[in-house]
């Protein structure tokens, strides 16, 4: 990862979403991207130039554009048409973003397009997010990592986030996914956790 002082940056053509530039690098703001927050907390999987990434919940392509600056190719899955319009604009500038308009719950829809990847990054904020990760783990190489952004408030607002997170970790393990680490993203994102997982 590239740091300038204590600022995380990425190298690529700027002006994707009005991000600030520092010495020709694009500032990757931890308050606008949960993945940047994870790196700012000193955790996460370092992105390398040979990595292939499956990105579930690509939205408008803000974080996707930074990931694409670091890795070889990003398969960006997003089901909704409106954010997809923005994502297409980002993907036109960056040839290593492969936009896929599909629901991450139905991976059979994009099996023909997505090869085996080194990292699966998931940020979908849905009640069934654990299941979504599990059905997509088929795309991961056997020693690959999954970075899973967990929003306990999207699963059950009435219980404490820590309790929900524990349950999700248990559910993942029954589905053959081992959680290596659980990182809470405060102060950047209160009540959000990042799980670093592997196939067990």
């Amino acid at each position, binding site marked *: 990862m590239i740091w300038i002082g204590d600022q995380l940056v990425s190298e690529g053509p700027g002006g994707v979403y009005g991000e600030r530039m520092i010495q020709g690098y694009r500032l990757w703001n931890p308050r606008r991207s949960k993945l940047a927050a994870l790196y700012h907390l000193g955790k996460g999987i370092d992105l390398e130039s040979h990595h292939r990434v499956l990105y579930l919940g690509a939205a408008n392509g803000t974080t996707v554009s930074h990931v694409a600056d670091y890795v070889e190719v990003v398969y960006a899955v997003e089901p909704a048409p409106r954010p997809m*319009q923005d994502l297409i604009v980002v*993907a036109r500038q960056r040839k290593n*973003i492969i936009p*896929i308009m599909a629901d991450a719950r139905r991976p059979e829809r994009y*099996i*023909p*397009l997505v090869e*085996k990847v080194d990292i699966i990054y998931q940020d979908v904020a849905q009640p069934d997010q654990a299941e979504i990760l599990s059905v997509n783990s088929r795309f991961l190489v056997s020693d690959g990592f999954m970075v899973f952004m967990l929003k306990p408030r999207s699963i059950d607002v009435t219980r404490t986030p820590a309790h929900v997170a524990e349950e999700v970790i248990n559910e993942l393990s029954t589905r053959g996914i081992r959680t290596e680490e659980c990182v809470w993203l405060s102060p950047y994102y209160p009540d959000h956790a990042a799980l670093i997982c592997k196939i067990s």
Partner: protein
Amino acid sequence: MNPNEGSYPLLLMKSYWFLDREGGTCHALPHDQRILAERIKQLEGDKTAETPDWEYAVKCGFVKNRGEYLDLLHATALFLAADRIDEESKVDHPELILMVKMLDEIDTVINLLSERSVEWYRALNPEFSRKSEIPRGRKLRDLMRDGSDEALGEILDEIEQLTKRRSTLSGKVSAKAAEFLPNCSALAGGLVAARLAAEAGGIRALALMPGSAIQVLGARNALFCHLSTASPPPKHGLVYQYRGVHGSRKERRGKVARVLAAKLAIAAKIDYYRGESDPVFIEKAQETILNAGRSP
């Protein structure tokens, strides 16, 4: 000869987005985004579809190297995504929903501006009282324009303009609704049909709803109040705007709303899945709705 050969030809066939591989031979496709995108659509959910193997694409002569493979995949994926957005807007017509939301927002703005103008006028003319018999709408605006502040007069002109825009837009919404929701529009009127679709979150979402949900669309507060406390359930939401509902006697309204909503649920399904008007259905449904309003 191997007995399995020939008897299970499908097992030997592998389909990638860029080529078919049959036994030892492969049939590469042309480098045409349109053709490749069509093929990807066919492969969705196909059991023989394979996770792509770029090395095989090179071996087979489809591309020269990984760089070319990714470039072609990128171009095809962009084409496919744009195509999907297009398809989605063809069935879900997001513009209809945005138009009806715009219409409702213009109403809110007109009401807010009118309220504030009256307050302003009152401050300038203390003898003016809202308790007395005062005109409304255009007549009220004409009254206020006389002998009032110039700035207020200009704002009243703007309200006038907005009112005109509103009626133009309202006509357009009705026309669009008659086109995209022909059956719902015939039963409940274009504006109500469009508002229902907007509240449901799209034409598709409306088509997937049961009648009981359509009946209380737009009565969210009353519905959740009913679910969490012992308050009575709402009889009607947006369907209240249909004259057959708000025009009938109070004790009949619930029944009319229920029957209308049930018929709208069917109409929405015809609109979404068939996309054309069904005169036989409309006639029968209208009769049923009319009967529901009559005293037994």
